[in-house]
């Protein structure tokens, strides 16, 4: 089975903060990391390869430094990588991102299975996976938490819904996005790390992919960010300054008063 894992390099969001006064992003020591959900995608691919054999390729769109993320993936035992990088890709929304990724998938010769993370933690959109599937005309199952069956022509996967799980048969070629339950990422192997050190990440720009500037990046995007601001502290805040037991009683009284807790039934 040939698997392509879509992987994004993201800023470590834990350290990105907007200064509520100056409205500027504070970025003390923000490191670039592999999107955590994409590590689950990688782990899923590694497990599938262990089960049925085949090859794993990783595909990423990003600035040249995103090559680091692909090298890191090589360390986990991935066979090949491709980085889509071009000034023209800057400012892409999910529509323009899937345009580039779809071209990247074609350039890699397609795959039996494409695996995306559930979402990227910078944008939290969860839109690229399903959008990419549509662009490539592939069937999809999002939010996959595991699989029951792997065969040459199909997978039987478990999809996490809000109120339970659906068991879905996905014919291949197809695309899945995965959630954490597919498996905790293993550490990179020593052998992989050695290979990663020497690995030269292949790169492709818009022209090579047969894409015009109008199709990618900000120019190729439908959506536009018009304003960025600090989250509003909603409602009032109150510290209940009282000894523990008294505070516990008081907060219940406040919640009843505010009609947040109802006493009847």
């Amino acid at each position, binding site marked *: 089975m040939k698997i392509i894992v879509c992987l994004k390099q993201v800023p470590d969001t834990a350290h990105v903060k907007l200064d509520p006064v100056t409205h500027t992003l504070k970025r003390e020591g923000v490191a670039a990391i592999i999107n955590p959900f994409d590590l689950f995608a990688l782990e899923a691919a590694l497990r599938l390869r262990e089960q049925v054999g085949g090859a794993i390729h990783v595909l990423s769109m990003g600035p040249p430094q995103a090559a680091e993320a692909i090298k890191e993936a090589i360390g986990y035992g991935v066979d090949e990588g491709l980085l889509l990088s071009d000034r023209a890709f800057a400012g892409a929304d999910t529509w323009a991102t899937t345009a580039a990724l779809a071209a990247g998938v074609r350039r890699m010769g397609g795959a039996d299975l494409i695996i995306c993370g559930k979402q990227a933690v910078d944008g939290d959109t969860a839109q690229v996976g399903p959008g990419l599937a549509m662009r490539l005309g592939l069937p999809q199952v999002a939010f996959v938490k595991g699989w029951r069956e792997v065969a040459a022509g199909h997978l039987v996967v478990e999809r996490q819904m809000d109120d339970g799980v659906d068991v879905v048969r996905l014919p291949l070629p197809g695309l899945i996005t995965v959630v954490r339950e597919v498996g905790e990422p293993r550490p990179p192997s020593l052998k992989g790390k050695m290979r990663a050190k020497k690995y030269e990440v292949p790169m492709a720009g818009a022209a090579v992919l047969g894409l015009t500037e109008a199709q990618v990046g900000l120019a190729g995007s439908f959506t*536009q960010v018009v304003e960025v601001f600090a989250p509003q502290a909603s409602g009032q805040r109150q510290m209940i300054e009282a000894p523990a037991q008294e505070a*516990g009683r008081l907060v*219940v009284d406040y*919640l009843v008063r505010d009609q947040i807790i109802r006493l009847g039934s």
Partner: protein
Amino acid sequence: MALLIDKDKCTGCGACLDACPFDALSLVDDKAQVSEACTLCGTCVEVCPEGALSLEEVTRAADGRAAFSRGVWVFAEQRDGALPEVVAELLGQGGRLAADLGVDLSAVLLGQGVAGLAGELFALGAQTVYLADDPRLRHFNDDIYAEVLARLIALHRPEVLLAGATALGRSLIPRVATAAATGLTADCTGLAIDKERRLLLQTRPAFGGNIMATIICPQARPQMATVRPRVMKKGQRQEGATGRLVTVEVAPDQDSATQVLEVVRAVGEQVNLTAAEVVVVGGRGLGKPEGFDLVREMANTLGGVVGATRGAVDAGWIGHAHQVGQTGRTIGPKLYIGLGVSGAVQHLVGMQSSEVIVAVNSDSHAPIFQVATYGIVGDLYEVAPAMLARLKELRG
């Protein structure tokens, strides 16, 4: 498309370097310089004290769809023939947007044997209901659902389409937006109309909730958004209201490649965190797995469900299905109670839109207190039992 830097105005102060979340700016010869890492987010433009930075105007040509697209649509998700709460919220908000635009509100309902729900959609404010009732729509399969919805859009050209940011909505709608060749904004917490330009102003958290962004889709139609459950207000229910019912045929050649073999509902302890009115979350501050007995008792007493931090899940005290936050569920209940939760940003992003937040933590500096409606500094093993006792007392 590019970030423009006016080298004459730039004083090399470095304010933009500090502000850039992507490390895309550097100083070369005391002037700002931008690299490929730039996503054109515009943060630097705002902070530059000299006004030396600007974003080149987007010149993407409008494709004309805006001129002839009218109406607000809501995708009325149904599971097992029932409408989740978010549909009422979407119709409430959709009605307000439709009024601002001076257009009608419609709902789209897909499924098998779901015609009976049309009346409910009218009562919730829909003036038109598009109904596709077909055995092939019995279960949720992305491809056929997307195809039916995309064909309806092409035929009737709504200018706005809203869906719930539920598992189903977030799986389906990006596929629909791509099929319809339009923009989509995920998980919105605020929606408004710019009347003059008939634009939907879509506000959503980004960067793990650390910033809010307002997004527009000026050129293409429909303007599509998934909307976070429990954020929008429902409309006034009009008992017995009726409207126009348009039945839609599923074309004979339409079928889904995927096949739902089995549907397993969460059994036993219900962990439908997304729909819960009350969520009681236990963190590592519980100190031991048995601490969740107290959390569970609190949840049961309040008719709520049990949530957990990643700290507690990683400790093995409770299953991951309970996890709230960036790598767990996003919730927005009426009442959130956090017991021994520190309030790491990855947790906050998943619960910040809760209506009322109660936090109990022994550390007065815990970040959770910055978002708490009511904060209590104290030992949760003293505070929580006192809360339970008071509840019992009041309920008699």
